């Protein structure tokens, strides 16, 4: 048994008072969870502490909170680990998740945000017509391919800290987009193209993600929502050639070719090319002029912050010729592949590994 100092963020909507902090000391073994600590405080000291939970085994997704500022499952965070990440070295700070309104204490309104977004992506399989008389036979690889997104337990931890959602609350967001990959990647689904077109054209869709990795870090189930979003983009752009009105696809292409040609990003050329076409002439395209004008505030900001310099507008960054060669070798290797390689990092190894193989038995008996 050890003592742990717990600091909870409390909020009661009925008092009209601002949120406040409450401290508790609990006694538990260090391998017990932060959830157990919260429940001990609730049971022994203050029954009014609001916290959602059910399974206590990281499978129901109810207990999403922020521990020391990081989103995750309270029941999946050991007290010793939480203590190790405590900012002051001794207090475990628990707060409700972000990007969702707080109903009470650690309980957030999942309906208002998370579930609305899940509903947005048609989260079910749309049958091909005519529906076959017998069951579909799905190749094993395609099931493995969607397993990662199927592992989601809807806890909302990724939504909590999504940077894009912070600035654009309408962003469909990591969990819902991962869910949409679950069906886009399913060979039985009849709506792949429709889904992708919809998600590309929506200004709050797949191109709204800033690639910040926060959702990958947050997810307790290894769903890696950002990776699923990138796969949606690759299938939309490369397989269905969807060029969206948000310039998402063009922006990505401009980014890729700038780095191929110059080894480093040429910031000043990025926007003109995304808007006007993927070449140095892009900026002279009438379309570019209009779009660039609307991006003027962003450009000014970039200039002021030194992200772009007036000189940099005229020529790309210097990079030694042999380094550029290396960069271009990577491009060549990737582009020469006949098929796009998609990694699924969720499942590794083969079925056989799970069976007691003959070699393993031999080793054991040796």
């Amino acid at each position, binding site marked *: 048994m050890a003592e742990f100092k717990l600091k909870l963020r409390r909020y*009661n*909507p009925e008092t009209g008072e601002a949120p406040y902090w409450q401290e508790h000391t609990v006694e538990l073994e260090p391998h017990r969870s932060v959830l157990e600590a919260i429940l001990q405080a609730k*049971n*022994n000291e203050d*029954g*009014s502490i*609001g916290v959602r939970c059910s399974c206590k085994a990281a499978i129901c997704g109810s207990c999403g909170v922020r521990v020391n500022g990081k989103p995750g499952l309270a029941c999946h965070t050991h007290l010793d680990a939480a203590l190790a990440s405590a900012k002051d070295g001794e207090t475990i700070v628990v707060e409700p998740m972000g990007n969702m309104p707080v109903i*009470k204490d650690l*309980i957030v309104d999942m309906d208002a945000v998370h579930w609305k977004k899940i509903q947005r992506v048609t989260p079910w399989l749309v049958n091909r017509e005519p529906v076959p008389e017998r069951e579909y036979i799905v190749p094993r690889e395609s099931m493995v391919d969607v397993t990662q997104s199927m592992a989601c337990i809807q806890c909302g931890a990724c939504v909590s800290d999504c940077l894009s959602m912070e600035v654009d609350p309408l962003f469909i967001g990591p969990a819902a987009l991962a869910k949409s990959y679950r069906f886009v990647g399913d060979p039985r689904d009849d709506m792949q193209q429709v889904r992708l077109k919809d998600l590309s054209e929506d200004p709050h869709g797949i191109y709204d993600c800033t690639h910040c990795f926060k959702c990958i870090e947050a997810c307790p189930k290894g769903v890696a929502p950002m990776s699923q979003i990138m796969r949606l983009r690759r299938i939309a752009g490369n397989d269905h050639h969807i060029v969206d009105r948000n310039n998402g696809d063009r922006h990505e292409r401009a980014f890729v070719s700038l780095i191929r040609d110059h080894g480093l990003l040429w910031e000043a050329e990025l926007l003109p090319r995304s808007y006007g076409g993927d070449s140095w002439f892009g900026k002279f395209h009438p379309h570019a002029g209009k779009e660039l004008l609307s991006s003027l505030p962003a450009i000014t900001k970039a200039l002021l912050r030194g992200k772009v310099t007036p000189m940099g507008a005229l020529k790309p960054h210097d990079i030694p010729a042999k380094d550029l060669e290396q960069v271009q070798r990577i491009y060549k290797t990737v582009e020469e592949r006949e098929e796009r390689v998609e990694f699924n990092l969720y499942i590794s190894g083969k079925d056989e590994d799970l069976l007691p193989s003959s070699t393993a038995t031999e080793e054991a008996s040796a």
Partner: protein
Amino acid sequence: MPEVDDAKLHEDEQRLKEIIERPKTGRRVSEIKDELGTTMNQYVAVYREEEGLQKAHEVVRRLKEEAKTAYVDDQGTVFNQDVLGAVELGYMLDCSEAIVVAAIERKESRGAQFRVDYPDRNDEEWQKHIDISRNGDDVPHVSYSPVTITQWEPEERKY
């Protein structure tokens, strides 16, 4: 959705209000729940015997009394898990009592019940269901009903 009549609704509202307004003189709901869990785990798990079961029954009866005055901290109307806990405690106590009474009743070992004092299966007397009902009463009533055997003939467990 089934229609809920106003009288029933009002009755339930009163019930919750009564719990919320209890003075803090009794025990904490969580404390009773904890004692109930510990007791059931100790005496009414797989290995059971008369003495332990009687003890458990006594404790459950006492806790049922104590639950009537058990208090909650949360006086609010938003996401009041505390009052929910108090309501659920009542159901837990009812279920626990039903389990204990049935376990005492069944003087044989079968399935998940291993009576240390009656280690054998006794089809002659006990191949029947024990039904526990409450029927608005505070004490459970015991009755029996026959077992319908279909495809699988019951056999002695040999593992």
